[in-house]
């Protein structure tokens, strides 16, 4: 068994042990099931959500908002980051705004988006976009500014102009930075979608969570939390696969390194 497989087995086993003790303590009444229901109860609730088909429209709403927010946010962050890095005037105007947006907890914009865009999907997408775009903006902006000057000189001495520099040095450098931030961006996109639904919505996992909390349904709350975690983890794995595919030059061949 490879090293990383062993690591995953160990992690899974420790999770099982934790769940087992939690189950035993809840069944014996040592911890109050009203506050912390047994894992089996949580699984039952999640299972029934799927079995009765009630969850699907909520999943669709949250996923639509998160994925749209992720795609638009990444694209916007890349465009603005490039513009700021290459055009000093744009940097002058954008940098303070982005710094400010980066410094504040951006989820406080959620009520404003609801007022502007209503309680349907667009306000959730907008929040996810703002969360993701600021992150990607700084990844691209600092990625271009910190690009290895030696590589720039190398391409210039080989006769490369601005376009070739962009293709051969800046874009690959920035791709590495953006992909490094992609996993965090996935988490941010879900945060935007769920918090947006929390504030005001008619559908979505955030809406369901809000409902579960208002009815003191701890099993449903925990089930939904685990569900969000599971989906984010799944997207993490996808993001990692994309990163390994696009940055194969970074990950390939350490085992056959020449001496």
């Amino acid at each position, binding site marked *: 068994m490879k090293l990383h497989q062993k690591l995953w087995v160990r992690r899974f086993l420790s999770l099982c042990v934790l769940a087992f003790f939690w189950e035993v303590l809840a069944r014996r009444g040592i911890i109050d099931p009203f506050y912390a229901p047994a894992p089996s109860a949580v699984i039952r609730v999640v299972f029934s959500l799927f079995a009765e088909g009630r969850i699907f429209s909520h999943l669709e709403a949250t996923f639509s908002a998160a994925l749209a927010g992720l795609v638009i946010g990444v694209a916007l962050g890349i465009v603005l980051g490039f513009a700021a890095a290459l055009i000093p005037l744009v940097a002058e105007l954008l940098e303070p705004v982005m710094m400010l947006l980066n410094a504040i907890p951006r989820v406080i914009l959620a009520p404003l988006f609801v007022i502007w865009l209503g309680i349907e999907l667009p306000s959730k997408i907008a929040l996810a976009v703002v969360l993701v775009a600021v992150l990607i903006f700084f990844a691209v902006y600092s990625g271009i500014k910190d690009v290895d000057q030696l590589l720039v000189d190398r391409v210039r001495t*080989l006769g490369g102009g601005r376009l070739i520099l962009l293709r051969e040095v800046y874009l690959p450098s920035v791709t590495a930075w953006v992909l490094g931030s992609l996993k965090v961006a996935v988490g941010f996109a879900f945060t935007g979608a769920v918090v947006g639904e929390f504030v005001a919505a008619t559908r979505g996992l955030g809406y369901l969570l809000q409902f579960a909390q208002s009815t003191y349904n701890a099993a449903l709350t925990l089930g939904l939390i685990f569900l969000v975690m599971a989906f984010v983890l799944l997207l993490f794995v996808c993001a990692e696969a994309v990163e390994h595919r696009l940055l194969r*030059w970074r990950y390939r061949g350490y085992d056959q390194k020449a001496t």
Partner: protein
Amino acid sequence: MLRVSDLVLGYGQEPVVEGVNLEVAGGKFVSLVGPSGSGKTSILRAIDDLLTPRSGRVELNGSREMVAFLFQDDALLPWRSARENVALGLRIRKMSKSAAHAEAEAWLTRLGLEGLGARYPHELSGGQRKRVAIAQVLALKPKLLLMDEPFASLDAIVRTRITQELLTWVEREHLSVLLVTHDLEEALCVSDTVYLLSQGPRARIRASYEVSLPRPRDVFAARTHPAFAPLLEQLWRDMFEEVGPPRIEIK
């Protein structure tokens, strides 16, 4: 091939180099040595248009395309394979992809890297990366080669071997070379002329030395040639006058 006249370079208020004059004739190997911080690298960068001089002239006998620059670091694109790195300059000069890759493979083979074209720089050893960097510049068939301590980071064995290989190639193809190095022995072994730069700031050419060792040269045999030791001694003496003799205080 190259003439530098009254070159003044600087980053701050005080010039790093002031009034530098040097010349590299066609087919000649010229080295530039000097104390640390005397502006050797800046002079090379100014020659290849990477640094704008405050004043002075850099005249090339031909277009800028005939100049190639070998950096101290490999400066290979980490996201490009060895073959793609070598082909990069050729592609920039509008060669088709397939032709550029075939040419790159031929150069890699010539430099002893057969079968390693698909590897990324991090999959190669330091010596192999250096050879890829050499292939990258030689593939452009330059007439003038600028080298900034290109082998400083290599161990002694690899360094000597690559220096000899490159020297043999330079002699056979009658390339003109301007080498920047802090290694006085290396400079004398390979050069026809060695320029000594004075201590900066406001560094200038303090002296030049003609090295009349026979060619083709062997970097080992050159060290045992009767003309070598007196030249080296003179060069060290002049260098010590610039920076002061070595002092070791034991308390």
